[in-house]
């Protein structure tokens, strides 16, 4: 394919824009190519894919049960560490490879009433309903359009030099740390669309309804992680302590009150250690999902579009925006599962409703399209991508800042 110099919208599309060198006809052909990849995969979906998501769901449930059992012994330091790690893994798997993807409707084709975007609920602070609106609709439709994609900086951070600076951004290194730790709560508040509420564009009834939803999610997380399971640990440890006293004969009159006090102490310790383990698991999950998601759109390579650039956007231009606005993360198969296959952010943004297990398979074909149309295919190792994001957040807390150079057309590595 020979590069065509004629641009789609002279004057509006900047010279750096990935759209700059593509004609309307090329964009149309590109759209056909991407549509064909999607249709081909959809025609091929079947038992193998069903087995995959079922195995993920089963793995999550096994890990969850294992972590709850391990944490019965949470006063023991090793059990605490193992239980916390297992619980974190379970929560990460549940949120990312399962929850996020099921809620995208990636598995709706199975027509399974239980694994379906309309019936799924997940272990996080956002209700499935408001998440589907703010993420599936707003973010995936207006991806990386300045002023329209509310996930750009999550309305509290400046992550593109074109965002106007304001003194409030001086605090963003701190907001950033808080957001990492409490990401699920940040996302839930973000779903509310604070800007629309401030401007009075959102009916108060809707806001109340959504707040109620978040409160419900909060309550079930608090009850489960900080009351119910710690109470089970407490009961188990107190009972264990009493049993030991009984065997060693300490339940006789003189020593009875001391034995009971010991049991109460064991229960209290177990309650606390299980609660802290669960708290830690929630924080670990928040850090991880924050890191993966920030690496998806905010590394230096990604392109942010102005609203003028995307006016009357064709389907082909939409595809270009999706792939230029996203960045992948290199990694092993395990890494991809742990990231919910959002390490294939490019493929995910091109085809948000395609089962995540297929992203790795289509990646070479997406790269091939990028190469032939002179488009970027953004990717990099995790630490590199993550550091770039952090540097940007720190730098843009202060006025100014420049666009980082974009990688340009994808060139395949020569073996």
């Amino acid at each position, binding site marked *: 394919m020979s590069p065509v110099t004629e641009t789609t919208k002279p004057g509006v599309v900047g010279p750096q824009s990935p759209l700059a060198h593509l004609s309307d006809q090329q964009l149309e052909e590109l759209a056909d190519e991407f549509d064909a990849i999607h249709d081909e995969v959809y025609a091929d979906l079947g*038992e193998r894919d*069903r087995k995959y998501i079922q195995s993920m769901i*089963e793995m999550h449930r096994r890990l969850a049960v294992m972590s709850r059992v391990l944490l019965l012994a949470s006063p023991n330091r090793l059990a605490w560490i193992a239980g916390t790690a297992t619980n974190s893994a379970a929560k990460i798997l549940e949120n990312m490879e399962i929850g996020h993807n099921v809620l995208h409707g990636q598995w709706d084709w199975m027509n399974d*009433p239980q694994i379906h975007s309309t019936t799924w609920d997940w*272990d996080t602070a956002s209700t499935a309903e408001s998440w589907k609106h703010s993420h599936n609709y707003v973010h995936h439709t207006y991806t990386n359009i300045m002023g329209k994609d509310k996930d750009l900086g999550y309305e509290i951070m400046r992550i593109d030099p074109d965002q106007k600076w304001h003194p409030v951004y001086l605090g963003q290194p701190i907001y950033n740390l808080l957001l990492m730790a409490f990401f699920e709560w940040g996302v839930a508040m973000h779903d509310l669309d604070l800007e629309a509420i401030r401007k009075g564009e959102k009916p108060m009834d809707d806001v109340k309804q959504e707040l109620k939803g978040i409160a419900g999610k909060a309550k*079930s997380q608090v009850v489960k992680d900080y009351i119910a399971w710690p109470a089970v640990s407490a009961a188990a440890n107190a009972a264990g302590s009493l049993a030991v006293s009984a065997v060693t004969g300490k339940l006789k009159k003189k020593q009875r009150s001391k034995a009971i006090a010991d049991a109460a102490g064991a229960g209290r310790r177990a309650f606390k250690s299980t609660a802290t383990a669960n708290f830690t698991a929630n924080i670990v999950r928040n850090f991880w999902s924050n890191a993966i998601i920030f690496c998806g759109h905010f590394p230096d390579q990604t392109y942010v579009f102005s609203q003028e650039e995307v006016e009357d956007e064709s389907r082909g231009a939409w595809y270009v925006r999706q792939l230029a606005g996203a960045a992948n993360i290199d990694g092993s198969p395990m890494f991809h599962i742990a990231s919910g296959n959002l390490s294939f952010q490019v493929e995910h943004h091109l085809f948000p409703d395609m089962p995540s297990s297929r992203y790795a398979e289509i990646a070479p074909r997406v790269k091939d399209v990028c190469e032939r149309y002179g488009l970027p295919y953004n990717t990099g190792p995790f630490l590199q991508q993550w550091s770039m994001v952090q540097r940007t957040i720190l730098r843009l807390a202060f006025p100014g800042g420049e666009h980082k150079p974009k990688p340009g057309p994808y060139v395949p590595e020569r073996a």
Partner: protein
Amino acid sequence: MAERGAQPNVPRYRRRALKAVESFFSPLLPDDYLELINPLWSTQELRGRIERIHPEADGAVTVVIKPGYKWGGHKAGQYLRIGVVVDGIHHWRAYSLTSDADRPDGCITITPKLVDAGKVSPWLTGHAKPGDIVRLGGVEGTFVLPDRVPPKLLFMTAGSGITPIMSMIRSIDRSIDRSRAYCDIVHIHSARDADRVIFGEELDRLASDRAWLDLHVQETAKAGRIEPPHLDELCPDWRDRQTYASGPGEMLDAISAHWEAEGLNDQLSIERFQPLIGGKGGDGTGGTITFRKSKVTASAQAGTPILVAGEEAGIEMPFGCRMGICHTCVGQLCSGRLRDLRTGEIHGAEGEMVRTCVNAPEGPVEMKL
């Protein structure tokens, strides 16, 4: 939304116990974990395990299914929605139950016949094996014997149309000694030849053992099709009998016309496997539908189901069978009157849950959808 199985008959103590520990598993349910041990334990929907599959004549198989919870019962002649996974995708079909409701082993049976171009019947007849789990939906159908079985009956069946009648015959056979009722059944069944009679052996045995059953098998390859005038020969007193007919559409059309011509309509029940939804679509007024949640108003012509009107207005409506069976599409009626497209009946009370796939508005209505 995808179709679900029926509500199982879960013992109350069990439901309470599961409810009590729900907060340990939220947002999942205890069921989601218990299912990993045994999928039949789900209290969310009724499932069944395939116990045996045995071949019948003419490419049919009988599938014996043990429901996960005590079978809620059915009337002989009714059909069941059954959900199976074929190459990763759930498919739902309705099949006549061929068992009677009182089997001592608590099992139910269906007897699907292979339809080459189908999805579900090739799976059931060729791939399903004992131990496989299926989803069991609702039992429906009005092609049933009355509680007091009429003393004189005529069954007219052809091909796989025999399935609901087999359930009736088995049900009568199980209860007749106990009830000591008088019963006299003439059963006329048509098949290409005698080897292709589904349940042929069992029917022959019953016909020779039981005084109440008189069987005539019409081998259409040799003797040609039965035309209604033949009835005077095969069953001279057919006018005195309650008749149940089940088979291909042409046969049923001919029978309906004949009974109607003789003024015997109320003595005839027929089972069509393709329900005629909106068959009398011209009836009724149609009307406007206000979908409250979607904030859309659509208009529907006479005979247009709410579901279709909503879809055409761009609303993502829940649906399943689209024939009034599975209840996946139900929505709450806020105001207005509806016409049931299957019966023509006008109904509708405020707050009623209605199936959008078989109801059309009769005047302006409001739905909480």
